[in-house]
């Protein structure tokens, strides 16, 4: 008798109908969007703030350098003494006073710049001022040495190395960033999925133990069927939740940005900044073109198929371990000691993915970890956009499937014994003994 569909259906419906699941499903994207909107709004607020900076230049070298910008107004206080200037700035409640002390040479000026203010000034203001001054002084020095600025500007050359593989595939810098984004997203998605829904499976196994229904159920179905039904049912619920998050998140993001007119692109993550830097090299037009070619350059079919296999394989591997933990203990607080060995390889995989794959996608470390079954799903998913030979993917997948089958066997053993054990927190030694029952 195959009860698997029945069990899957029950697990799915119970999860989906659960109140806290529903609340989480619809509230999470709201909270996320609200958070993003608040951050965006605040950073915009910060950018919009008007500042007045007074400048007291006793050297005369920097005349005309400080032009008013959108957010900053510069007022020159030339002719006043330092004390008067400070008093005046205080009274006007200016942002601060930039002071160049008397100096006989350009180097002397550089050593004698001060910024007076009520509160300590923001880092970005100071560094922008520093950049301005450095540029000005450099130009002055060059002029003194008889070099004209125009000459320097004319001599500047922009280089971009065109990349092409031996097979004739063209690529560019943007390619790597796109690959990184795709690989990283896939690996990270898997990581999140395992953590969230693996835990859910574990809790559901524990619930069956604490409600003592387990013996009733397994007098009707095989423990392994129950376990697989749980894993698949919970995963389907997870996929449903994820899909709702993506759709709802997208819609909300659109609505919020439309209503509040907040330019969400201003909220930048470090990755986006990298993209932006790459963008600056080209014009926006060329950039868009590059992006499209970069995406179309990706081994899409391979990527999608590999994603499906590694995602499912990796997820099932970890969730059967989670199920085994749930079966071994009586309540959630007892799970801690068993969680560590599961979380370690998972976190390791993400670290390897983030630090090593980016540096050298085909280096020894990346390659090895993309074969080790517990880390391979995450690491391999990150590597694949950079082009991994099919035999490597196949071998890694084979290892993963082999380990998965072993893990299911192992988990089923633990499960079969563990679900009928009450009242005692098992040790690793006892778990090992259970395998032989």
């Amino acid at each position, binding site marked *: 008798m195959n009860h698997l569909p029945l069990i899957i259906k029950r697990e799915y419906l119970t999860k989906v109908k659960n109140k806290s699941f529903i609340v989480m499903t619809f509230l999470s994207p709201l909270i996320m969007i609200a958070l993003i909107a608040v951050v965006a709004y605040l950073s915009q607020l910060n950018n919009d703030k008007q500042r007045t900076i007074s400048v007291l230049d006793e050297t005369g070298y920097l005349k005309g350098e400080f032009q008013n910008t959108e957010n900053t107004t510069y007022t020159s206080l030339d002719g006043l003494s330092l004390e008067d200037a400070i008093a005046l700035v205080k009274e006007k409640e200016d942002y601060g006073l930039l002071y160049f002390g008397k100096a006989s040479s350009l180097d002397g000026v550089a050593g004698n710049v001060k910024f007076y203010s009520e509160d300590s000034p923001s880092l970005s203001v100071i560094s922008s001022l520093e950049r301005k001054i450095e540029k000005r002084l450099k130009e002055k020095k060059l002029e003194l040495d008889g070099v004209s600025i125009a000459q320097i500007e004319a001599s500047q050359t922009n280089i971009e190395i065109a990349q092409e593989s031996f097979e004739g595939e063209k690529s560019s810098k943007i390619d790597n960033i796109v690959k990184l984004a795709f690989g990283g997203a896939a690996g990270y998605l898997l990581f999140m999925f395992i953590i969230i829904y693996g835990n859910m499976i574990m809790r559901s196994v524990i619930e069956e133990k604490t*409600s003592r*229904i387990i013996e009733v159920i*397994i007098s*009707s179905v095989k423990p392994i069927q129950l376990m697989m039904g749980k894993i698949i049912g919970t995963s389907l619920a997870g996929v449903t939740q994820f899909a709702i998050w993506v759709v709802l998140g997208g819609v909300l993001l659109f609505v919020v940005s439309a209503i509040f007119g907040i330019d969400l692109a201003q909220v930048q993550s470090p990755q986006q900044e990298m993209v932006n830097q790459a963008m600056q090299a080209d014009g926006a037009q060329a950039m868009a073109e590059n992006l499209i070619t970069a995406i179309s350059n990706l081994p899409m079919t391979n990527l999608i198929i590999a994603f499906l296999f590694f995602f499912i394989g990796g997820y099932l591997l970890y969730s059967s371990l989670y199920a085994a933990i749930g079966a071994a203990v009586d309540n959630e607080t007892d799970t801690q000691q068993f969680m560590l060995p599961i979380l370690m390889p998972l976190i390791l995989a993400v670290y390897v993915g983030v630090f090593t794959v980016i540096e050298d996608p085909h280096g020894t470390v990346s390659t090895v970890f993309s074969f080790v079954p517990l880390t391979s799903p995450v690491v391999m998913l990150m590597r694949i956009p950079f082009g991994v030979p099919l035999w490597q993917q196949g071998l890694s997948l084979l290892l993963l499937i082999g380990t998965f089958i072993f893990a299911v066997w192992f988990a089923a053993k633990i499960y079969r014994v563990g679900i009928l054990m009450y009242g005692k927190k098992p040790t690793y030694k006892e778990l090992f003994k259970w395998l032989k*029952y």
Partner: protein
Amino acid sequence: MNDLLVADSVSKSFGNFKALNQVSIAVPKGSIFGLLGPNGAGKTTLIRIINQITMPDAGAVLLDGQPLKPEHIRDIGYLPEERGLYKSMKVGEQCLYLAQLKGLSKTEAKERLKYWFDKLEIGDWWNKKIQELSKGQAQKIQFIVTVLHQPKLLIFDEPFSGFDPINANLIKDEILQLRDEGATVIFSTHRMESVEELCDHIALIHKSNKVLDGKLNDIKRQFKTNTFEVGLESLNKDKVFSEIQDKFEVLPATFKNLNDDIKLNIKLGEQASPNDLLSFLTSKAEVHHFVEVIPSASDIFIQTVKNN
């Protein structure tokens, strides 16, 4: 083939602990079979083996003459001692789910559930969640789920725990009715009075070994000591007492009676007939009370366990 279930020298160990040692039982068709034993004797292990939850290390279990196979779970209804239901699931949904796991179709399960819900007058529980029910109420649902697929063999492990006397009686009557309709019942409990009331056959397991089995009446015959409880009335109590004491082995007895009697347990030799005792007693005093002492299931249980 008159035995529905036969366990033949079943052994099971967990690590170094031997839970069952060559245990054999035969459960006759249509009987109520009491599986008795102190806590930790191995009853639950045996029941789990019958339910194919665990596999025996050695020995075989036959159901209806065939070695146990996965299809047999449809023929068995099991109410474990450690039982529960999904707390946040609705009663109706849950019953349907568990019935379907036992191989019933959804429509069939619905029909039978309706019958049982009407019979036990709990129709309005259908949409309640289990956590809204009391423990006894949940037990009723559990009972229905156990018997719903009309199994040949019913296994009840402490079925009356959590029930008030009225509901315990109700369930007892249902069990008897199921037996009359042809089901065979294995009944595991520590409540000896219900063993007395229900069981035709018993087996006693102690420290992983079967130490006793057979028809309850045969076992009682085996355990009886030819002892009679008597109540006598006489004007000369002391004389009568010493005369009896000279002739028979006598122990004091306690039972309720209207008169201020001589109350005695008199043990006869193997061959002696109760008629001889009775005629001796009538010649000495007025006999108000004369009963053969029949060992109760509880006495047999305690005696066997202590002697082993």
